[in-house]
């Protein structure tokens, strides 16, 4: 991946939350008629979604990389043991 997982997660989270707000308007939950309230209803969830999913993206990526590293080390150990035999 070219960009940092946290940045990627934050972007995805912001878009996801904006989509949910717009769906809420379509389904009759959210009123986006006013300019100020409409922008607030979009911007605030976008920030919240960005922060939450930015952190989540970073944590998930770190966990996945740790797993990958552990698998590599395990493979090296197995290969070394096989060479000794």
């Amino acid at each position, binding site marked *: *991946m070219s960009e940092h*997982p946290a940045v*990627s*997660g934050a972007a*995805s*989270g912001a*878009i*996801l939350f904006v*989509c*949910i707000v*717009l*769906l*809420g*308007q*379509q*389904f*009759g*939950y*959210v*009123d*986006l*008629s*006013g*300019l*100020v309230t*409409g*922008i607030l209803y979009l911007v605030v969830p976008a920030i919240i979604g960005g922060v939450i*999913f930015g952190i*989540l*993206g970073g944590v*998930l*990526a770190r*966990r*996945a*990389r740790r*797993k*990958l590293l552990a*698998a590599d080390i395990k493979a090296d150990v197995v290969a070394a043991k096989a060479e000794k035999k």
Partner: protein
Amino acid sequence: MSFPRGGFPGPRFRLPVGAAVLVALTILGAVPASGATTFAGAARPSNVTSVSGLTASLSFSGFTTTGAGSPSSALTVSPGSVSASFHWDDTARAQHIPIAQAQIAALVFGFSAFTRVQVLQPANSNATGWVNLSSDFSIVRFLAEGVYQVVGSLTAQDGSTVWQESFYVHVVSTYHLVVINIVLILIAVYEVYNIAKLGSTRTYKKPETSPTPPEAVPEEMAKDAGKEGP
């Protein structure tokens, strides 16, 4: 619950996760369709402003708009043809205001998204009168739905607004099958997939290198070149 080694969610979990999000969003949308009140707070009368002495009323697609002053009490209408009827009464004033124009507009982010104007030519100077507006939105009925604030207004000959009422309309499409909903759900599912992909080890695996060293190729080529020489 244990997840496969590929990271959360594993390849076989991605489709069920996407499907679960889709179902959740569909259920979320189906709830207000049953007629449940979706906004917090009590219903309030519509917001009316007018010059003193002039009274008017507006009916939207056959419904009286006076009680639809909040999203919770919005008038539920189907997409398609829309009709609005203005009735005004200026008998309390000695000099009647000549009504020249009736207008109805739906607001999105404070801007008029759909506007319909009926110009009276010549202006109506009677003490009482009515104007009918009708608009056909059949073409865009599969495009969008949702709650919109609608502003109906009567304008005098000099261009000043003499009566204005704002109320809420909830446009409900059949089964919520509109283009915007489908596109938004697809984007949401794609973003959920993107976030899930961040936890997969396959995303961070380096591509495997070729086992043949590149130095061996020029030697062989050199030998072959020597044999083939004159």
